């Protein structure tokens, strides 16, 4: 017994019945969703008895130079099947995507991580902060053009620009 991977065509067929107009295009290895319908489609996939995708396994983003993609691996524990869903983010300057934390609580930290490293803002996320890097870090390090971004690590430069000396923290007294 091993986990069944839903093929993209099978998935598209299933989802178009469940939530119409939620699929933008279907490719060989994944099915691309429309960002506006993302949360609705995910909610339906989670709650429908036939799909039962209750477990968000993996959420990550990827940079294809001209666009971002956010990849969701969702699985059903009882049916032992897994599917790969993608969403495209075309606006590089201001990438925005609806958050799926309302569907799966487990998306919380993974979306934070994607925001931290790619700068993709997830709308309606309860607390979207940088988790691995500090607030105010210049640039989004996992973008392919990170080195050419303002504040990125320039070739030949040994220090990050923008790491100014921090003020000494004040002494707090125990309340």
């Amino acid at each position, binding site marked *: *017994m*091993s*986990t069944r991977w839903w093929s993209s065509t099978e998935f598209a067929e299933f989802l178009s019945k469940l939530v119409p107009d939620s699929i933008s295009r279907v490719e060989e*290895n994944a099915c691309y969703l429309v960002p506006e319908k993302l949360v609705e489609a995910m909610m339906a996939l989670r709650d429908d008895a036939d799909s039962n995708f*209750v*477990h*968000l*396994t*993996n959420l*990550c983003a*990827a*940079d294809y130079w001209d666009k971002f993609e956010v*990849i969701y*691996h969702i699985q059903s*524990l009882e049916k*032992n099947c*897994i599917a*790969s869903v993608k969403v495209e983010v075309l606006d590089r300057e201001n990438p925005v995507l609806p958050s799926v934390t309302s569907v*799966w*609580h*487990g*998306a*919380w*930290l*993974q979306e934070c*991580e994607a925001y931290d*490293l790619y700068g993709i803002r997830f709308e309606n996320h309860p607390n979207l902060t*940088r*988790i*691995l*890097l*500090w607030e105010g870090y210049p640039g989004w*390090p*996992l973008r392919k053009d*990170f080195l050419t971004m303002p504040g990125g690590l320039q070739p030949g430069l040994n220090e990050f620009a923008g790491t100014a000396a921090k003020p000494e923290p004040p002494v707090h007294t*125990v*309340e």
Partner: protein
Amino acid sequence: MSEIVKTEPFVMNIGPQHPSTHGVFRVKVTVDGEQITDAEMVIGYLHRSMEKLAEERTYTQNIPFTDRTDYLSSMSNNLGYCLAVEKLGGLSVPARGQAIRVIMAELQRLASHCMGAGAFANDTGAWQTPVMWFNRERERILDIFEMTSGARLTCNYMRIGGVAFELRSGFEEAVRNLLPRLQQTIADGQELLAENEIFIARARDVAVVSPETAIGASLTGPMLRGSGVAWDIRKADPYSGYEKYDFQIPIGYKGDAYDRFTVRLEEMRQSIKIVEQALDDLPGGPHSTEVPLAFRPPAGEAYARIESPRGELGYYLISDGGPSPFRFHIRPPSLINLSVLKEMTVGASVADAIIALGSVDIVVGEIDR
């Protein structure tokens, strides 16, 4: 009246330098008396941007990186990464290589759970004794790793298409001598801790995660199984020949810290069973297939996952046909298991929060990568 008679809440930092955060991990808790009213974790102290670095190196060069994410289970990390690359490149591993990988992964699980169970016992206040007892056996497992791969902690033993070297002579004997000792230590742990009245009082009904919460929060591994959800990648999606071995999935009753601890102990027993079976019919033949050093898998993507000691460890690779991955993503079980940190700690006392944190069994290297 109750507005007047109240204590003053204050913010307390647990970590980044604290004996119980198992590394540089920090939780900012707001405390009212002894009760926690808010908890916020602060991570990133150990961030080494491995995902970015990996985009500049070849597939084989990336294997040592995986050692250093979850530094308590390097073999499992190697295995997960190699499986992902093999899936991407459509490679197959010879039977002997698969069996050796299973033995190593299970020994690594034993070593990691030794650390996890011991550190958890330390968090409950059993002053170092269980840690030392479990670490004694962990050292012996690390001796076997050293004998096989030359390194104790960051083994770098798996390769794409198999394992790096053939097993040394005397390996099988060493492992067979070790297993009864491990059984004994697990039995000691069962008696000293799991059946200890104080331990039960401390860990039972603490940091309860309901199965619905656990599934919704994407928990995996002992955290998920402790909540009573039967989910183990080794059973559900067998890799590296796990379907050949006879073992069972331990699941807990209530999803509290005690269940997670006992699940870990039981998983150690099951791992011993698997290692014994794998040793009994260790196939002959080559240990690895020939893979060019600058391996160029075809363009595409692959998501491979294994059951690491901490949960589902996934590697998501995108290849553009070049010698290095276009995107290298690790699904870190330690980080995602911390999704429920707030649910576990808010409302509990500081002492229970430490227990909750200990029962997650985090490795900061994997959280921050």
